[in-house]
């Protein structure tokens, strides 16, 4: 099956390419750019005039809700949502039910996902058994089953001694540990950023220091153990500053931010909008601005959707009882590009955090359009306006604080290994 995409604005953040051209695909791979290989005969030709051709997105956090939460979403529904959002590779956190702490579970999930042929799924393994923070999960065996990192998901960080050992153990084999920096005791019971909004609404607060204390400890332990650590979901200006300092000292750390946190702050909670109940919490406007700058300056390596489908019953409750999270797979691309435009970045620069830089954190070859790489490609209409209507989202998760927002740019077609998995 040979495919030719003609007249597209081909953008490759890795090589910083942004010019009109063609992509020739054979055997699921990019055979050549701009000039057809000798003897190339296309079975299908796409005229992509007016469309951007960008690498399929690499999303570092998308909850697919399987196993255990099928009433919220299924692998099928969420992989379709991923395809509709131009996401071709994603990492899913281990906070399923049961958590991904056994190789069998990981293999089953990977096999089911592969069977769907709509995208590439990389499950993160549980760092501790049952995510309980007590015993280490079987990391080597989970790695063999396909886990490219180990994480606690949104479960609390283990006690210091356990975390210390987990990092030493992971460092033994060179595994990456993904940690969301949030001190459990300083954030216990909290549901909103400690500041004016939480004070006004009487919501139990999560102070910034819950992030910075955990961050300092993790960085210190990473340096001492030599473990590779990925810091998931920064939320504060102080957190960005600490990461910048640690990186300048040569710490082997990377970090990401959720795309919601680039656009929203605690003010958006308004009068108890439970769709703004996110974890980590939306913080002050100055924190949001620091996250935006940190990403533009490369202190923050990647942006993820932190896609979390939540059923209505778990959101139609008082703010503090609502389950945290928002749907995101279909919003990641337009929201990332919007941030890029507002930050004065070219699309190739804006997309780095959802393509090759994210792929590097996962340790995979993806997120680029170059000869020889897998033909995971998103064709994107950069001018098409649309309004976020929850009911119209492909994802089973309709929970979004962006309801009614007008966005510019929509996915026209998504290819995984040269196969069309979504067409508008």
């Amino acid at each position: 099956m040979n495919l030719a995409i003609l007249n597209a604005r081909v953008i490759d953040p890795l090589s910083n390419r942004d010019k009109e051209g063609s992509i020739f695909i054979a055997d699921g791979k990019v055979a050549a750019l701009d000039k057809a290989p000798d003897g190339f005969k296309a079975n299908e030709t796409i005229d992509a005039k007016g469309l951007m051709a960008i690498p399929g997105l690499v999303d570092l956090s998308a909850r697919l809700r399987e196993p255990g939460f099928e009433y919220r979403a299924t692998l099928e529904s969420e992989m379709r949502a991923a395809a509709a959002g131009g996401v071709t590779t994603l990492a899913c956190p281990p906070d399923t039910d049961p958590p991904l702490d056994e190789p069998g579970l990981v293999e089953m999930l990977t096999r089911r996902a592969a069977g769907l042929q709509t995208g590439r799924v990389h499950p993160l393994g549980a760092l501790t058994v049952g995510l309980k923070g007590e015993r280490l999960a079987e990391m080597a065996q989970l790695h063999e089953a396909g886990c490219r990192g180990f994480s606690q998901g949104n479960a609390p960080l283990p006690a210091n001694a356990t975390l210390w050992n987990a990092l030493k153990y992971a460092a033994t084999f060179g595994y990456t540990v993904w940690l969301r920096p949030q001190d459990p005791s300083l954030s216990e019971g909290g549901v909103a950023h400690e500041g004016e909004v939480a004070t006004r609404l009487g919501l139990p607060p999560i102070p910034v220091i819950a992030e910075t204390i955990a961050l300092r400890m993790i960085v210190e332990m990473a340096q001492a153990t030599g473990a590779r650590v990925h810091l998931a979901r920064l939320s504060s200006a102080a957190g960005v500053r600490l990461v910048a300092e640690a990186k300048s000292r040569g710490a082997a750390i990377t970090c990401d931010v959720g795309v919601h946190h680039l656009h929203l702050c605690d003010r958006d909670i308004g009068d108890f909008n439970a769709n703004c109940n996110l974890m980590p919490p939306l913080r002050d406007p100055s924190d949001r601005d620091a996250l935006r700058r940190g990403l533009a300056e490369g202190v923050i390596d990647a942006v993820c959707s932190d896609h979390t489908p939540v059923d209505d019953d778990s959101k139609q409750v008082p703010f503090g009882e609502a389950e945290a999270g928002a749907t995101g797979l279909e919003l990641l691309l337009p929201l990332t590009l919007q941030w890029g435009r507002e930050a004065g970045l070219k699309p190739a620069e804006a997309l780095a955090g959802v393509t090759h830089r994210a792929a590097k954190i996962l340790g995979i070859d993806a997120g680029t359009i170059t000869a020889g790489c897998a033909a995971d490609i998103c064709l994107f209409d950069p001018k098409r306006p649309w309004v976020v209507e929850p009911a119209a989202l492909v994802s089973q998760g309709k929970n979004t604080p962006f309801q009614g927002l007008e966005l510019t740019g929509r996915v026209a077609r998504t290819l995984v290994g040269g196969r069309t998995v979504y067409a508008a």
Partner: protein
Amino acid sequence: MMGNHELQVGPDGKLRHLLSTEGLPAEMIRRILDTADQFVSVSERDVKKVPLLRGRSVFNVFFEGSTRTRTTFEIAAKRLSADVINLNVAVSSTSKGETLLDTVYNLQAMDADMFVVRHNQSGAPHLIARHVKPGVAVINAGDGRHQHPTQGLLDMYTIRHYKKDFTGLTVAIVGDLLHSRVARSQIHALKTLGVPDLRVIGPRTLIPADIERLGVRVFHDMLEGIKGCDVVVMLRLQNERMNGALLPSASEFFKCYGLTAEKLAVAKPDAIVMHPGPMNRGVEIDSPVADGPQSVIMPQVTFGIAVRMAVMSMLGTPA
């Protein structure tokens, strides 16, 4: 999503729900207090009943236990001739796993006209108000740490009764601001009514972050804070605050922030002392002050009935 103002006040200027003192216009607060004036006299009559809510059903739905507040709402509704149904949901539906909205829908199907709601989660009455049928009113009787607007309004009534005008007053609120829904209701109402010098006093562990942005001045020294005040509001201190390492002991709190005659002496000579009840004597307030000539704590309770009657009558009758 509708904000406080649109939820509470209809386009016709009529009160639809009472959820928060935040966003309640000064004009509306004055109307409530003026209406309450008329009901104070009802309470002094032999027959303490008016027919304003005859045939209407008021459901007191308490997801968190409270005998006193529920009783005051019950008395107010009965004096307006409403049918009152008390539900202690804390021990019934939720333990059966029913959601908050399902409970409300069920009660609505029994033709409730008004819900008086207390819940331990901030924002629960807002959620209910967004989901009830048009014409059904919700009164927040205390939600989490957020608001207790009828308490805030009865405090405004009390202050107006004794001080007439708000625009020259110095008011201090003392104690556990962090957990107090009463304080939040008072702060918004006092700011709206034009109090120029509003102070909050307490240790740093009990003052929530950025509270200055609500328009108050923060004091940690009690004497400095109540100096020259016209009104001193003492908040109730819950015993469990000692567990979370917020305070060392009740007696140390009393030593630093308890209101004694000696401390009260630095306020204006005609300063009034208020407390939303129930009081912890010897913790936040000394008995001689609680029972002394400057205390208006008992009148607060009496006015509370009139203010709740006012709110209920405004919600339950055509404008």
